[in-house]
């Protein structure tokens, strides 16, 4: 072993939640007060789904603490001019001065009113990484809660970099903010671009490795051979953005080439809307009195309400019935003796034309392969089989489909999410063992677990908290600069909703007015933490320009970066290994975190803060104190805003609301409450106990991995295949917008189809780009895509040497990845320096040639293009983010777009 004699060695338990696939538990070895080694936490090997291990990113945390490029003291800007080419002139100030600067601004805001003349919150905040910053921001959520309205809609990547459509439709259909295969039992998985080996975290990697050894076949359908494609049994190089055609063709095979008995007929009849009757106007036929959707009792041939007990519904066929349709704005259309079909019948007709032969030229995949994959999927579905989970017999359907970014967001996201969920339903393979599962809820409430969010809706489905679209309650005046509640009913109104789409509208509105919406104002105060939208968003040039106009920006700063280049105040917070926080762990969570336990883990400081970095809880408390919000802040902590409610049935560790508490006191109370919560009040161990043990858990029932038993218990159906509700609210939303004179959302309104039709998305992109930039799109022959990197994704670790070092071992990092033959045709050799230009912008980089990518596709992994971040600014790595335009034409109805653009490539010269 290297090094000098160590006099004092200890290990500290902590967690890593740098990416959305966490949290994972780990230990840090501390020698003579210096953190030297990250190791798994094998104390948690029986508790954590990946045996207490942490992924490669966690091994960057020690460098993160000691990085000489850190900002170690509060600083303020001295150059009032902002912009990329303006030197901020940051100078060191004291914490007192820094906090006074911020508090004075905040107090001025409170005095002026929490919202501005446009109705938007004067204070905005952007946090990156899919919610992960909350695991590091201590009690800041309590401060924000005490503050009041905060605009969280200035996106830092969401919409284009996230599973956006999946978040919304997943929550609607099966309480899946993200969706996962039940990997431990799955036997056949079709993965459309889901890069689980890069973005699935430790749990994803471990579960899939175990599944491979079990013999699970995974087919990776994706334009390039990602690490996930590499680890799959088969790679199908599909043309970018044509996945809906592939899935529609699969549905065609199931419905037009297979006999019905291969489907899960009881599931379709009892657990879906397949037997519901659809009227002439595309709405459910309903009982005129109860307004309940009707279906046909096969025994009597009579139309009865869907919840009539003891009947065998007719799955398909045409029937003559009486009833009503209830249209948008409660319009009632009465029918007498009208001939109608079931939703299933509509579906069968809908996919008739979508044969594999039809899909072949669209996807550039042989029809025989599409058909074979569909057949293999069906053959593995095991319809009729069961498995016992914790004493309950459930269907076993070991087949699943997962969707990746660019597939499940932007145009086509609806089609793909629908098709994936529907295919599950056809085989009863949704929310049952082995099949496709939701992971967690972020939009539905309550959010403590998925089961408790299952509430009956009026039509036999789970109730969903749509934003209102009625005449009386539509939110015509946006509450945030993205106008999310105004434009996107599906995005709901949880704490997460603002941070979902369409966050690019918030940025776009800083530059252009949207007819009939209030003129967007910049926020008076903008807080930024663990995010760098000047790099991580789309059209980063425009984003950078917009943020340079913000009058007062406060960045919790790790190093200098491209976003805090425009900051007015830099506040250095403790990094991962320095701060103190208690975090809820376990249960089910994205990406593949399915635990058999739930409880809490402590992030105990392994090393003292470097320089004058401060614990986030101290900062939040100071802000609350200096803005006169201490009482509300402490009350929010008592209510659970810091992760655990401090009082319960038989315990109360609430803080005195009027006192300033130090971080240790706050987290000690949290630890006590956590101990009590986990043990039903039997234990009350505090911070010291958690420092020693690291985590405390109790069992989480595996049965709750699956929504199906809860649905059966409540007597509900999955809202598939027919999207009557979406169809209706789409019409209502259109009515509202048109009444207000808003026509610029019409393209999005067209997406509210009850059965999504195929759209030529490639043409959609090409036409939009050609139109907006007045270019000949044929001059841009390549599709540019991106892929996640396990080493970098969400980590905010681009300035860490060890991460760069190990990422360089994984092919493609920092390069323009290009097909060998395509390059040869253009005279481009491996290592050449090239310019990649979209109609919007260009980027430069080094070419890496390979065979594992389509000839019409280029790939740039991760997000780079840094010009201010120390270390990273010297990478000379290309990035697609500056190349992807923010366009309404490329925005789908959920408010998202895909990381996709057309580009041309030009050789600039040989490698130096």
């Amino acid at each position, binding site marked *: 072993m290297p090094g000098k004699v160590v006099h004092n060695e200890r290990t500290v338990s902590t967690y890593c939640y740098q990416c959305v696939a966490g949290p994972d538990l780990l230990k840090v070895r501390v020698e003579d007060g210096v*953190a030297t080694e990250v190791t*798994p936490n094998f104390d948690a090997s029986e508790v954590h789904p990946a045996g207490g*291990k942490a992924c*490669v990113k966690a091994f960057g945390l020690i460098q993160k603490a000691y990085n000489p490029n850190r900002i170690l003291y509060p600083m303020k800007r001295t150059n009032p001019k902002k912009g990329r080419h303006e030197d901020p002139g940051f100078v060191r100030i004291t914490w007192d001065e820094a906090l006074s600067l911020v508090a004075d601004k905040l107090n001025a805001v409170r005095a002026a009113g929490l919202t501005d003349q446009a109705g938007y919150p004067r204070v905005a905040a952007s946090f990156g990484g899919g919610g992960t910053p909350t695991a590091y921001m201590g009690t800041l959520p309590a401060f924000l809660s005490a503050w009041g309205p905060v605009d969280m809609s200035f996106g830092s990547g969401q919409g284009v970099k996230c599973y956006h459509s999946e978040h919304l439709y997943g929550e609607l259909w099966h309480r899946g903010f993200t969706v996962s295969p039940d990997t431990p039992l799955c036997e056949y998985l079709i993965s459309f671009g889901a890069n689980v*080996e890069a973005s699935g975290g430790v749990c994803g990697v471990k579960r899939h*490795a175990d599944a491979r050894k079990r013999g699970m076949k995974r087919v990776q359908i994706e334009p390039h051979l990602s690490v996930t494609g590499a680890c799959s*049994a088969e790679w199908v190089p599909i043309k970018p953005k044509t996945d809906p055609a592939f899935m529609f063709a699969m549905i065609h095979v199931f419905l037009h080439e297979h006999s019905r008995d291969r489907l899960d007929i009881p599931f379709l009849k009892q657990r879906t809307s397949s037997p519901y009757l659809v009227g002439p106007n595309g709405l459910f036929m309903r009982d005129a009195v109860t307004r309940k959707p009707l279906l046909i009792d096969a025994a009597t041939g009579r139309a009865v309400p869907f919840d009539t007990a003891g009947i065998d519904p007719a799955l398909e066929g045409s029937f003559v019935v009486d009833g009503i349709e209830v249209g948008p704005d409660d319009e009632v259309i009465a029918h007498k003796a009208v001939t109608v079909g079931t939703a299933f019948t509509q579906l069968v007709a809908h996919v008739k034309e979508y044969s594999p032969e039809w899909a072949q030229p669209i996807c550039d995949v042989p029809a025989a392969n599409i058909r074979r994959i569909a057949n293999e999927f069906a053959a593995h579905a095991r319809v009729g089989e069961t498995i016992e989970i914790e004493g309950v017999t459930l269907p076993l359907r070991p087949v699943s489909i997962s969707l990746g970014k660019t597939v499940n967001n932007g145009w086509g996201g609806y089609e793909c999410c629908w098709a994936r969920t529907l295919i599950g339903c056809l085989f009863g393979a949704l929310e049952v063992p082995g099949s496709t599962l939701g992971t967690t809820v972020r939009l539905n409430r309550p959010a403590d677990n998925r089961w408790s969010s299952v509430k009956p809706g009026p039509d036999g489905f789970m109730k969903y908290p749509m934003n209102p679209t009625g005449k009386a309650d539509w939110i015509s005046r946006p509450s945030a600069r993205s106008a999310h509640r105004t434009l996107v009913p599906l995005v709901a109104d949880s704490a997460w909703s603002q941070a979902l789409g369409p966050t690019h509208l918030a940025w776009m509105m800083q530059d252009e007015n949207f007819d009939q919406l209030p003129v967007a104002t910049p926020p008076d105060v903008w807080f930024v933490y663990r995010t760098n939208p000047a790099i991580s968003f789309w059209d980063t040039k425009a984003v950078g320009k917009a943020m340079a106009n913000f009058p007062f920006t406060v960045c919790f700063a790790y190093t200098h970066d491209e976003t805090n280049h425009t900051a007015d105040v830099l506040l250095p917070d403790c990094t991962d290994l320095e701060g103190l926080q208690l975090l809820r762990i376990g249960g089910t969570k994205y990406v593949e975190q399915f635990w058999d336990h739930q409880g809490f883990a402590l992030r105990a400081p392994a090393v003292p803060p470097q320089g004058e970095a401060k614990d986030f809880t101290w900062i939040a408390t100071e802000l609350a104190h200096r803005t006169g919000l201490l009482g509300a802040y402490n009350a929010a902590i008592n209510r659970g805003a810091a992760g655990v409610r401090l009082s319960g049935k038989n315990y109360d560790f609430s803080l005195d609301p009027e006192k300033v508490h130090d971080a240790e006191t706050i987290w000690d109370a949290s630890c006590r409450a956590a101990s009590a919560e986990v043990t039903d009040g039997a234990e009350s161990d505090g911070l010291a106990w958690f420092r020693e043990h690291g985590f405390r858990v109790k069992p989480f029932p595996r049965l709750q991995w699956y929504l199906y038993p809860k649905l059966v218990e409540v007597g509900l159906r999955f809202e598939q295949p027919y999207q009557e509700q979406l169809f209706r609210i789409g019409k209502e939303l259109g009515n509202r917008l048109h009444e207000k004179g808003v026509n610029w959302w019409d393209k999005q309104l067209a997406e509210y189809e009850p059965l999504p039709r195929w759209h030529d998305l490639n043409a959609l992109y090409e036409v939009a780009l050609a139109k907006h930039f007045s270019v000949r799109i044929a001059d841009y022959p390549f599709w540019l895509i991106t892929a996640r990197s396990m080493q970098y994704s969400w980590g905010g670790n681009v300035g860490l040497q060890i991460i760069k070092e190990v990422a360089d071992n*994984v092919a493609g990092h920092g390069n323009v990845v290009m097909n060998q033959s395509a390059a040869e045709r253009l005279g481009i050799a491996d290592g050449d320096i090239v310019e990649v230009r979209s109609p919007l912008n260009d980027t430069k980089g080094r070419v890496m040639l390979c065979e594992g990518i389509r000839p019409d596709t280029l790939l740039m992994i991760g997000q780079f293009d840094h010009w201010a971040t120390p270390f990273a600014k010297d990478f000379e790595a290309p990035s697609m983010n500056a190349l992807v335009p923010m366009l309404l034409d490329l925005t789908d109805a959920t408010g998202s777009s895909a990381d996709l653009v057309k580009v041309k490539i030009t050789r600039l010269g040989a490698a130096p």
Partner: protein
Amino acid sequence: MTRWTMVADLERCVGCQTCTAACRHANATSPAVQWRKVLDIEAGSYPNVSRIFVPVGCQHCADPPCMHVCPTTATRQRDDGIVTIDYELCIGCAYCEIACPYQARFLDRAPHFAYDAAMQNETERADLARVGVAQKCTFCSDRIDFGLENDLTPGIDPRATPACVNACIADALHFGDADDPDSNVSRLLREQRSFRMHEKLKTDPGFHYLYGEASDGSPERVRPAADGESEAGHIRARGVEPSHQQHWDWKAAGNFICGGVGSGLFLFSAIASLRYAELIPLAWAGLAIVALGLSVLLLKIGRPLRFIYVLRQPQRSWMTREAWIAGVLFPLAALALWTGVPSLLIGAAVVAVLFLCSQAMILKWAKGIPAWRQPWIVPLIVTTGLAEGSGLFLAATAQLSAVSLLTQAAAATAVVLSALRAWTWRSYLKALEAEGAPTRTLAVFYAYRPGFFVLGLALPLALIVIGFAKAAVAAPLFAIAGVCITTAGAVLKFILVTRAGFNQGFALTHTPVRGSGNAGPAVKPGWSMP
């Protein structure tokens, strides 16, 4: 007995480099020194492409080439199979790096840090003993020893298990005792099919690769080539195909050149001095050239102050033997030249030839460099040294006096040795082609071949023939011919060491199954096969 063994499951590995990072932490290696890392290999042609992640590092061979060549005994092998390095003995000659066919060894000549200055954690764990010496994966032997002392089972108990295995998030890495039939690794190797890398080199590596097919007890299916060959079309081969060794540069080449020229010159001068005493200074010159080559070497090694340790391993290492022979050669030759005693002169000449042979053997034992380990390297280096010496001897004698019998004899000798050298060169190249070699090695040789033929054989032969025919111009022609012969040999060795010294690269005999289907074809990028 115990044989600690690593088993990497290629079906599980996702190439995430968590093991790489964990090793960097556990062993406090400096940036870019990766005792453990995972290769990212792509093979095939679009759209039939596979991409494989292959953990590599020291294979802890049962017959470790690094240990055989180590001149200082710094590299040793424990009874449990772990190959160790004693940083206090290593002189940083890098011979082991070149002998290792797995590119597992590193030589960091100066302390390196993640950023410009050392961070606290780097200062805390800085180990100056590692600077300028060979280093590599230890299988975390400290953890194993700790475990054994505390009744823990390495590979099972994390405290006794290598850090990379502990950290592996795909459970792709396994560690245990292959000699224990009940161990975890023995079970894996019994139940699943596996291969070891570069089996043909007979190093008996302690690193096995599972490729995902269950063993049904039947014998291993025969692959196209035992050591693996590419059936797979294009290969994205960066970091995988043979790359040029980075350890021995012009200084090492200089030693081989000076060793050949000097010992050859000494040989001929010493023998000739028996009759022509005026050639004694020429013999001194030969000796000086040998000394120059060896002293240039001192510039190359990582720990020059420890150079004397080079003498510690005469029983195995040809580098030690070279040093010992040099140690005999210099005093003996000096004495012989000083006294002019014929028997001493003859004795010294024999030792000079042995010195030349030892240099040839140094290259032959460099198992990691296909162009050097080829057995024909020995006659090639010996004949080249002799030819070089004869060429310089000819050039010198041609200046000494009018053309004499001596000069003519020297010319005839040079012609014969040049021809012999050309023949061994041809045989060497043929043998290399027959056995298979890195394509870039062959490309270098093919590019050099015509020039070598002209400079090393055709031109000097022509000049000497003309010289014999036209006595008036013989002296300058002989001199030019001699210089040509010597130069050709020097260039050959320079190219051999600094241009054609591509390493073994990495190869797989099977690409793994991934969940379903069969294992794929072998991959051996960057190699020409017979």
